[in-house]
């Protein structure tokens, strides 16, 4: 055999084929003498979106089996919540799915409000909708940047993070923090939005519209990007439903299930928006659905700003919400309430509820058990990333290993939510 270097390079170049490598069909029986080997991917790997470890069984370049191994960022948040008063546990649950913190906080607060039987003022509901939808855009932007990065479109990361920064600036204006704002309280929100927030938000949505057009022009007309997504990772709708998958992944198969429409909460029934769905259920559909969702979220934000009702931003029930700061100087009752709430917290009557909302990744359920004390007896988050991760095996099996990276990217798992 001649050395490869002895061949003239022009001849070697001609022998390179640019044809698509056809992966054998999924589920074909493996020949007993065919060589299978196991490759460990992660937990520290730039393409796993966190500390996700995958045990891949490969036959050549074709993935035969993938086993996700998780638990590397398990921090026992659910256990820690049992030792915190309800209003302090909000800080903990926000850190589960760290890109969708408003959703975690909402699911927990709404569950506690239902246990208390507490009404949330309309203005607080609208403010919550504005922040949740801005958070959805921020989460999808981060997904867009990191996914495009995995597929080789490096410049997309900086551009989407540039736009995400504008949203974080808005969060900083309203809540004082850029991440994990703890803006949602039981009974409403922490503070009213400051002057200038509305104008800045409208500026953002106006800018973002053209930016999304630019990103689509950049990615959708890139042949490499499209070919790597189209017809890859198709899983049938029935299988996905059996696997408990929800959110953009199930909508990419044509299912119109969206909790904001199906079981409206937080006055989502007041807004007009559409549910983007895909047709085939491949990675390209998943990408298109999320892009379209960002546009719909901006419509909701604008409608909520247009129709923002006047009134209190948090409930007037002093047994649940802190009294306004200025009352402390003049009212003894306010001082007592403030002291009781801060030292002991409010007590929640016994019961258990399961509150489900539509997070950027699917159904985010919060299960809270109250035993009558000021600390929850059990807080459980049904995190969409955790459940959706089970579909990675079906997406990646029988495909090439390069498509496994695309599958993880389009799955959009957040390891903080998976491990909790």
């Amino acid at each position, binding site marked *: 055999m001649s050395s490869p270097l002895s061949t003239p390079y022009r001849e070697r170049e001609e022998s390179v084929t640019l044809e698509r490598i056809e992966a054998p069909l999924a589920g074909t029986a493996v020949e007993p003498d065919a060589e299978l080997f196991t490759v460990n991917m992660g937990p520290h790997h730039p393409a796993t979106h966190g500390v996700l470890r995958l045990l891949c069984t490969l036959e050549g370049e074709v993935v035969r089996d993938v086993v996700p191994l*998780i*638990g590397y960022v398990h921090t026992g948040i659910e256990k820690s919540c*049992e030792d915190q008063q309800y209003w302090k546990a909000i800080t903990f649950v926000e850190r589960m799915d760290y890109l969708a913190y408003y959703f975690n906080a909402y699911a927990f607060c709404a569950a506690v409000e239902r246990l208390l039987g507490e009404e949330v003022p309309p203005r607080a509901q609208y403010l919550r909708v504005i922040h949740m939808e801005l958070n959805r855009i921020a989460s999808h932007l981060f997904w867009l940047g990191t996914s495009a990065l995995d597929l080789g479109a490096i410049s997309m990361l900086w551009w989407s993070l540039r736009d995400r920064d504008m949203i974080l600036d808005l969060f900083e204006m309203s809540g004082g923090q850029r991440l994990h704002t703890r803006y949602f309280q039981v009974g409403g929100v922490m503070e009213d939005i400051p002057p200038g927030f509305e104008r800045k938000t409208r500026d953002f949505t106006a800018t973002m519209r053209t930016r999304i057009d630019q990103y689509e022009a950049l990615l959708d007309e890139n042949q490499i990007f499209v070919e790597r997504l189209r017809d890859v990772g198709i899983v049938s709708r029935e299988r996905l439903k059996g696997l*408990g998958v929800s959110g953009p992944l199930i909508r990419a198969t044509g299912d119109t299930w969206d909790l904001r429409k199906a079981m409206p909460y937080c006055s989502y029934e007041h807004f007009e928006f559409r549910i983007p769905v895909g047709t085939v259920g491949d990675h390209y559909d998943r990408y298109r659905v999320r892009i379209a969702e960002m546009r719909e979220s901006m419509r909701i934000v604008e409608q909520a700003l247009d129709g923002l009702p006047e009134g209190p931003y948090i409930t007037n029930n002093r047994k649940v919400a802190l009294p306004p700061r200025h009352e402390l100087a003049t009212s003894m009752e306010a001082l007592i309430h403030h002291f009781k709430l801060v030292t002991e917290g409010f007590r929640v009557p016994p*019961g258990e509820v399961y509150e489900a909302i539509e997070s950027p990744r699917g159904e985010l*359920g919060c299960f809270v058990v109250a035993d009558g004390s000021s600390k929850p*007896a059990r807080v*459980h988050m049904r995190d969409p990333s955790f459940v959706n*991760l*089970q579909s990675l095996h079906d997406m990646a099996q029988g495909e090439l290993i390069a498509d496994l990276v695309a599958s993880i990217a389009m799955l959009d798992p957040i390891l903080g939510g998976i491990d909790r």
Partner: protein
Amino acid sequence: MIDPTGLELVARAVRGAVGEGSVRETIHFRGEATLDVRPDDVHEVIRFLTADADEPFDFLASVHGCDYFPKEPRLAVHYQLLSSERRERLGVRTRMTVEVAESGTVPTVTDLFPTADFQEKEIFDFFGVRFAGHEDLRRLHMPEDYEGHPQRRDFPIGGEPVLYTYNEHEVPRWYE
């Protein structure tokens, strides 16, 4: 949304199909309907509710564990069923003592809903409920060699030694 009357009708249908003692209690709380069933009957009840019932449920939204300590029977597994057509949720709950949970009486539902795989592993990991018939029941979040089930209410918070260079010889079995 299932109202209290509808819940009683569901309970009657389940009792008729699975057995008179299968449903122990019906709970309607803050608009949420829950059936409390016997641990052995969980699989049959969920199979009936998803396949044979007049108004079937097609989606298992969540499976999670709970510890009602100091109440007895203290451990519980919750199943959240969802009908995407009627937009209804129904909770199925089963409560058991620690002995029953560890003896492997609760049947797995992974054959009906593959989504229960991770969630049952998680419940086994955190609460020590052994699901009968689960093919690959193992710890999910905690290390393989971990002892105890940390989400139980009598499991203390804290007490995990943090490994630093200065104390690595004092932490037992760190080198194994």
